[in-house]
């Protein structure tokens, strides 16, 4: 059994068997079936392509188009000029504390959140290999990933609020009065508070991925290394880490995407204005505010900028993931 394409006597019998009297495929000559096969095959793709073209591709193109025209419809680069020169995007007086501008806030978010959650997840994954009941620990840490991010923002707001929240009271008890305030009201602490809060929410992601990844490394590698007398550090850097590279790539990409697009947490923690003097303003919030103010062209420009950033960030991973 089994040469593709050829239809022989046995095939004929099974044809009728499979056909079940519904007509099946008849030997209609070489062109018939192949042509029908071709057109029928497009049906596999039709619904998906239709939806994607109408609700994803067309809107993306339309947004790009909007960003390059002015309110009157004339082509212009003015929107980008306006956005990039707006102090809301990049604050000309570059000094701590925030606001530094949405671009820089997102950048800071990436710079702090990505390494910490990645390394922390890795370290936890490594430790938890030897812990009994590790799945409970993992689930506890992963809880944040399951939470809708809007609820995450509420939890963070609650966490940092003087009175009901635990963080200010903690620092008050320690005597550090400057941190014993509502973190989200103060420019110095608002952004950092949310960033660390998001680490708390998102570390579960890298933990789970690394945990799974670690289990796929065959034990023999370690056995062999141990026999050779390799010290644990060397084993980690020479064996574990390189084998975890695909996971690392995925974690970096997904986390990067998430941080660039961050919206829900900020919206529910500090509201649509982006915090005191804009100290927690982020790109997607900026875009949303333009949208609400009906400044569609500016909103489109911000969105396109954001997309450019995400495309660059994910270029590497996707090449890997898509290799056939």
């Amino acid at each position, binding site marked *: 059994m089994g040469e593709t394409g050829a239809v022989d006597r046995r095939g004929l019998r099974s044809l009728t068997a499979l056909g079940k009297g519904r007509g099946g495929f008849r030997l209609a000559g070489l062109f018939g079936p192949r042509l029908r096969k071709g057109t029928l095959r497009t049906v596999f793709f039709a619904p998906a392509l239709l939806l994607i073209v109408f609700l994803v591709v067309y809107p993306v193109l339309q947004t790009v188009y909007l960003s390059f025209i002015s309110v009157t419809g004339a082509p212009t680069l003015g929107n980008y000029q306006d956005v990039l020169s707006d102090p809301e995007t990049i604050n000309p007086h570059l000094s701590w504390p925030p606001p530094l501008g949405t671009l820089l806030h997102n950048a800071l978010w990436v710079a702090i959140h990505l390494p910490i959650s990645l390394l922390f997840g890795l370290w936890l994954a490594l430790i938890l290999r030897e812990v009994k009941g590790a799945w409970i620990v993992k689930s506890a840490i992963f809880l944040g990933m399951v939470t809708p991010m809007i609820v995450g923002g509420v939890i963070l707001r609650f966490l940092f609020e003087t009175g*009901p929240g635990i963080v200010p009271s903690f620092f008050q008890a320690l005597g550090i009065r400057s941190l014993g305030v*509502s973190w989200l*009201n103060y420019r*110095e602490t608002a952004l950092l508070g949310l960033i660390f809060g998001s680490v708390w929410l998102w570390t579960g992601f890298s933990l789970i991925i690394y945990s799974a990844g670690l289990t*796929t490394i065959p034990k023999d590698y370690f056995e062999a290394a141990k026999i050779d007398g390799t010290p644990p550090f060397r084993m980690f850097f020479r064996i574990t880490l390189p084998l975890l590279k695909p996971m690392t790539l995925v974690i970096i990409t997904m986390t990067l995407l998430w941080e660039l697009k961050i919206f829900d947490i900020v919206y529910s923690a500090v509201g649509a204005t982006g915090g005191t003097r804009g100290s927690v303003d982020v790109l997607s919030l900026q875009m949303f505010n333009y949208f609400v103010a009906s400044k569609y062209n500016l909103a489109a420009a911000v969105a396109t900028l954001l997309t450019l950033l995400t495309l660059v960030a994910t270029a590497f991973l996707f090449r890997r993931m898509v290799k056939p």
Partner: protein
Amino acid sequence: MSSGAADYVPARTSGRLIAIVVALLIITNVVTAVGVYYASVPPKAGETITVIGPWAGSEMAKFLPVLDAFTNSTGIKVSYSIARQEDLKTILPVQFAAQRAPGDVIFMVSSFIKDQGPKGNVLDLTSVVDKTGYSAGALDPVTGTDGKIYGAVYTGKVKPGFWFRPSFFAAHSLSKPTNWTEFTNLLAQIKSIPGIVNPIVSGDGVGWPLSDVTEHFIATYGGASMHRNLTAGTQKWNGTAVHDLFASKIVPLLAAGDFSQPLTWDSTAINGWWNNQYALYFMGSWITGMTPPVDSADLDVFSLPTVSGVTPGVVFAADYFFIPKYTAKVDAAKQLLRFLASKDGQTVQVKQGGHLATVLGVATSAYPAVDAKVAQTLTGKEVLSDLDDTKGEPFQSNFWSQLKGLWTSPDPAGDLNSILDSIQSKA
């Protein structure tokens, strides 16, 4: 290392079962979708109209009797929906762009109504509302430059000054200040009392408490004229006069820790104040209704002491409301609007306490006793409308945000210039 291949379950003869399950899922989804489509048809217009207001909890409990009185006299049922005005600021423009509205009568900031009127999203009420029946200027914030009246005015609240507990003052031999020096002395006295965190508690909510107390300073020491000029945009926030006012009156208090950090008005601020962790609370007259924990028998208020040569003002914040063009029940909505704007409606509201009528002819006997104390603070003052409500967006959100920045700054004097510049940039 293909988890995919290792995962698949070889096809068993339950193929038919699976086909049935899939079919069922698809059918239920189709049914749901169809049902949803029909369910999203607007409900039949029985005589029920929707009012949208910002009040919830105990504030809402004071508004409902007014709606009940309306239903009793007209038979039209009213359903009340809560929406914060800061949310409506983002929701309404988007809805209007889609030719919809979330309610039939909507309470909203006056600047928003005035802005939306010429855009055609709001009903023209010039023939419905009679200006002469109201205190002078009450309808100006919702009158467009074309002369048309786009909103109606409801009751309002005054923002008289700093509220305190007479029992607390008596226990510590404190008294109401009559000049600025006495005021700063009072603050110093309070600061030395054990248990006090800061003398003045700064509510925060969404930002309006800080702007309210700032306006009080402006109206008292810059005078009603400065307040009006800033509202109209004829005076600059970063000009010398305003800068000096901030620098000499507000910033020193902030630097000395006389104001608390901005507290969200959940129970923290008001409970803290009532429990004597803070002594003074700048609030509007609605505080008399915040029971619990407030006990209106142990409540009094004083305004910032005035200086000679400056005519002070007091902010009277009326609530404005409008009818969106996209409502289906115009007549019923107009009836409710007339009622709320009338003597009958406003008398019911005023009786609940904490509100002041804008319509002329409401008897003084209708007001509860504690509101009389508020009335005392109004003598000799000109009536002003709320600055940031009148100016609206993009000024308001930025104003609130910048003030919060001033309050939370470790060096308010140093940051003052950039903050005033920022405020002016969106003025």
